[in-house]
């Protein structure tokens, strides 16, 4: 009897804690997350529009050129390298599929449409995210934790105008150019594997590339690359800019986590938005 009373007394505080119930816990969890997501998306939208408006100022031109060099010119090498091997792999895979149907003549068509419509914009955007996007987040994040962004405000310099606007403008210019490079070098890579290594006729290949590619395909690829550019820069800059607001870490650790988040979210958003944009343009 005495033993039972001891057990009851020991478990009393736990029993006093009211249980939420499954439905309430479910809505608490998902409701809370939804509200946070909603807040973040709203904040990001305001962040983007405020930065975008400030692109159109004369003083931005040198900064935009500097960012085009950083995002565009400095990313060209890696984009060309990845584009070439992507084209080679595509040439290889498609050759062995088409040869079963005796249709190797349309290799050029398959390569051109796959690269220009889909793989060029997506893979180029992912490569730029990995190279330039992560650097943007880290740079802005460090500027945030070392009070450089606060210093801008005290000097009456709008931090969004100074740090984010030139990057958005540079992304809108650089992403389509790099996508074009990716497409062109990919087509050459596929020609290398399909024609030079596997024996498809080069004339047929290039004839099919030119004949089957319409202006709509090219523009569709550009629309995608512009959307990806805006998304990547906004996400990466947003993550760096608000690195001090993270609740899971502080200081250098928060910059590191922000950089990881920026790359992961950007890559996911590239693929999600790819589907959305494709559904509008096909």
């Amino acid at each position, binding site marked *: 009897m005495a033993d039972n009373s001891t057990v009851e007394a020991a478990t009393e505080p736990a029993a006093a804690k009211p249980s939420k119930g499954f439905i309430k816990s479910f809505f608490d969890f998902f409701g809370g997350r939804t509200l946070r997501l909603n807040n973040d998306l709203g904040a990001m939208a305001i962040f983007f529009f405020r930065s975008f408006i400030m692109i159109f100022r004369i003083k931005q031109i040198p900064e935009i050129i500097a960012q085009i060099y950083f995002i565009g010119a400095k990313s060209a090498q890696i984009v060309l390298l990845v584009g070439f091997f992507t084209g080679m792999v595509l040439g290889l895979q498609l050759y062995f599929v088409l040869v079963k149907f005796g249709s190797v003549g349309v290799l050029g068509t398959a390569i051109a449409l796959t690269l220009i419509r889909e793989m060029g914009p997506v893979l180029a955007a992912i490569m730029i995210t990995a190279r330039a996007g992560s650097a943007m987040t880290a*740079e802005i994040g460090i500027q945030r934790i070392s009070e450089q962004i606060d*210093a801008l405000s005290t*000097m009456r*310099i709008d931090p969004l105008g100074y740090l984010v606007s030139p990057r958005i403008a540079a992304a809108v210019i650089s992403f389509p150019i790099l996508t074009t490079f990716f497409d062109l070098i990919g087509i050459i890579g596929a020609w290398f594997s399909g024609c030079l290594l596997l024996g498809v006729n080069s004339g047929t290949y290039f004839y099919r590339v030119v004949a089957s590619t319409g202006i709509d395909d090219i523009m569709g690829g550009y629309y995608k690359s512009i959307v990806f550019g805006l998304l990547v820069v906004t996400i990466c800059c947003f993550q760096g800019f608000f690195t001090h607001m993270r609740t899971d870490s502080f200081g250098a650790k928060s910059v590191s986590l922000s950089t990881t988040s920026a790359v992961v979210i950007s890559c996911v958003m590239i693929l999600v938005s790819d589907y959305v944009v494709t559904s509008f343009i096909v």
Partner: protein
Amino acid sequence: MDEQRQPLIEFKGVSKTFGTRNILDKIDFSIYEGEVTTLIGLSGTGKSVTLKHIIGMLKPDEGEILFRGKAIDKMSKAEWNDYIGQIAYMFQSNALFDSLTVFENVAMPLKYASKLKKKEIEEKAMARIEQTELTEVFDKYPSEISGGMQKRAALARALVTDPGIVLFDEPTTGQDPIRKNAILGMVAEYQKRFGFTALLISHEIPDVYFISNRILALYGRKIVFQGNPEEFESLDHPFRQELISSLESLGEELTGLYSKRHFKVRYQSDLSQRHPDASYAAAVFTIDDLDTITQNIGHDMAQQIIRSLGAYINKHFGAVGGFSSRQTINEYATVLPYSNIEESERILVDFTKDFKEHGIEDIEEHEIWELDPNLENEDPTGEYVEFSVLAGLAQGKPQIEIESVMEFARFNQKEIARFRCARGGKAQ
């Protein structure tokens, strides 16, 4: 006096809480135009938070901040821009852009927040760089220059827009005693030269008293004192034990001499026990033309001279039971409680001889030497800067106020040594 003046910036019942932690609890204080006001308090008590409220980086949860009587949160956009345009902020961490050179950092506020032409921006930025003695490193990145230079670059950037109000967030943190006092000297000099209102956070007690018109003490989430440094030194408040004792060392860091407060305490404890008719000697030393040294050679040199003289005073007068204190930037007071005037005159002669021979030492970049009063000392080329050291003695009695004795010693001052220093480098 203060009540009759219109405050430039006024905090009225300002409170701030972060999460569940209350930082400021209904604080009230005033800052007056053209003055240097120093906010002191222990670490983590909300000093930087207070400063950030002034520039709108933080908003109060309660209360209001007035600028010339107008609440800053009720200003129109034009009024706000006008207000914020008058303020410069120097961060504790300097907050220099590490990817930009010193010149680019200094020119930044002009480049992005003014309508000046490129040439004008360059001229203005270079002028500030020269004034802060950074000409040799103007094209270097912050990571390539010393901590002291980084501080000066941040100071140059804060002053490049000719602000009316400059907020200094612990400008001397992490500096050696010479640098600390050089930076404080720089703040005082620029404040006099440009006439801005300065609010600075500093732990450098008592050094900061020499440059401050007003002291604000933040303690226990409240402003517990506001007034001039003299009133602050004689303040009787429980926070003193915790705040002042932890911040103020017995001796001044630069010279190793007593702080003014400890000097008075020592005076009272040593002389109150003496017979009323007993006599003691007091000496007052002054470095003349220190401003000329500061302006022509630099703050570091001026602080070296101050330190050197302090060390020699301590060496000679401390050996016979005397105790000394720096009273103002360039004046020292010494009390010899057990010496009469004749003995103190002999000590002064020995001191003068030693000081003339070895006085200003350890100067790496500039050479200083004593001028012979019997020779022709003219400097037609203007390549040298001169300064002199004055000393005066007086006899006092325990019942006489120390201030009166020191005044008499000042009256008796005469030049004991004159030095000449090369402006730009080694002496010829």
